[in-house]
């Protein structure tokens, strides 16, 4: 399974954010997208997730499910947590698991993986920023998708939760998954390659 970007260009509001970007990522590999503020790290992730159009170039995922688009095989963890405050923790998770992945996914392991099991029936409104982030991460576990697109995944997480996230990412890679993460600092993956976006 391989994701390749070929001469990618991103234009937003008439401004070229980045151009001529090449990369390739194979199963089991992680890639850190680095660059200055405004260099287009988030734009690149959103482009791969199919949320903004590709101005020029090609994106290709080979070796995945034949009839699924790239966006349907990717998880996107953005700056917002996509949680509804009036729904409980488990209701939020069940909805995204049903919507994004296989119906009837088991949610308990996903909740346990982010250590939210005791709060399963609490409305999401009561959660702290870090707990909301963890619930958002549980979505990646509950619905299986090979490509994880993580935009600043460690924001709002304490050290312990960052370690837990690193463990989850490692086991995702070990299972043949791929990770692309936009980040300003280390997120606990040792063999990750770097992809620099925008000017040095």
């Amino acid at each position, binding site marked *: 399974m391989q994701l390749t970007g070929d001469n990618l260009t991103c234009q*937003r*509001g008439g401004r070229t954010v980045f151009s001529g970007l090449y990369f390739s990522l194979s199963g089991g590999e992680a890639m850190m997208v680095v660059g200055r503020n405004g260099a287009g790290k988030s734009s690149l992730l*959103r482009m791969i*997730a*199919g*949320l*903004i159009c590709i101005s020029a170039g090609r994106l290709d995922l080979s070796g995945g499910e034949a009839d*699924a688009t790239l*966006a*349907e095989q*990717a998880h*996107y963890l*953005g*700056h*917002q*947590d*996509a*949680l*509804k*405050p*009036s*729904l409980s923790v488990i*209701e939020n998770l*069940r*909805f*995204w698991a*049903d*919507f*994004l*992945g296989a*119906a*009837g996914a088991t949610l308990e392991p996903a909740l346990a993986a982010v250590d939210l099991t005791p709060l399963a029936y609490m409305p999401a409104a009561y959660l702290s920023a870090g707990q909301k982030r963890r619930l958002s991460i549980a979505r990646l576990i509950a619905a299986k998708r090979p490509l994880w697109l993580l935009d600043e995944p460690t924001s709002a997480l304490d050290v312990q939760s960052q370690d837990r996230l690193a463990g989850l990412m490692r086991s995702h890679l070990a299972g043949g998954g791929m990770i692309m993460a936009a980040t300003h600092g280390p997120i606990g993956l040792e063999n990750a390659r770097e992809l620099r976006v925008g000017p040095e």
Partner: protein
Amino acid sequence: MSAFTSLLLRDMRIAVRVGGGALMGALFFLIVVTMMPFAIGPDLGLLARIGPAILWLGALLASLLALDRLFANDLDDGSLDLLMMGSMPLELAVAAKAIAHWLTTCLPLVVITPVLGLMLNVEMHAMGWVSLTLLAGTPALTFIGLIGAALSVTLRRGGLLLAVLVLPLTVPVLIFGVAAANAAIVGPAPFGPPFTILCALSLASFVLGPVAAAAALRHGLE
């Protein structure tokens, strides 16, 4: 549970929980209808004559204004991004949201119509006909309004823009809805033709609305 039903149930659940807007449309409808006699005067004969028209106008405004937050909340908390990444076509996801909205917001409008008709001195049997036309016509309003909701959310503007975009598109629904109601109540034209056209409008918008709204969302989001 399939993605479609899970989205439908989730939106309905949010609407009826604390902070949701399930009955707000019905409340707005009640207030609009109450305001009318203050402008027109409490003449019961006159109110009975124009009652069906008042009810239709009130239902039109209530069902459109309630659409304002349909996509805006999902945009604000990032859910909209994920809704576009589902394995289900975006058109279906949008349709699920619209159906949930119709069930929680427009169905209550139809249910309280007889009570409001009572206040406007519309006769008992006439109220049944008005409710029936609203039941057949409000899906068209919701699905046409869906397009406006999608357009206004991509521009990150809500409220009046939605009404400005959508109200002209609802003219046929209003014409045939009131025509069908009046035909049933006072005649002399038969009830069948305008009511059939009203149903046809609902069915057509059921197809057109989600397709156009999904297109607006896809092309509008950057």
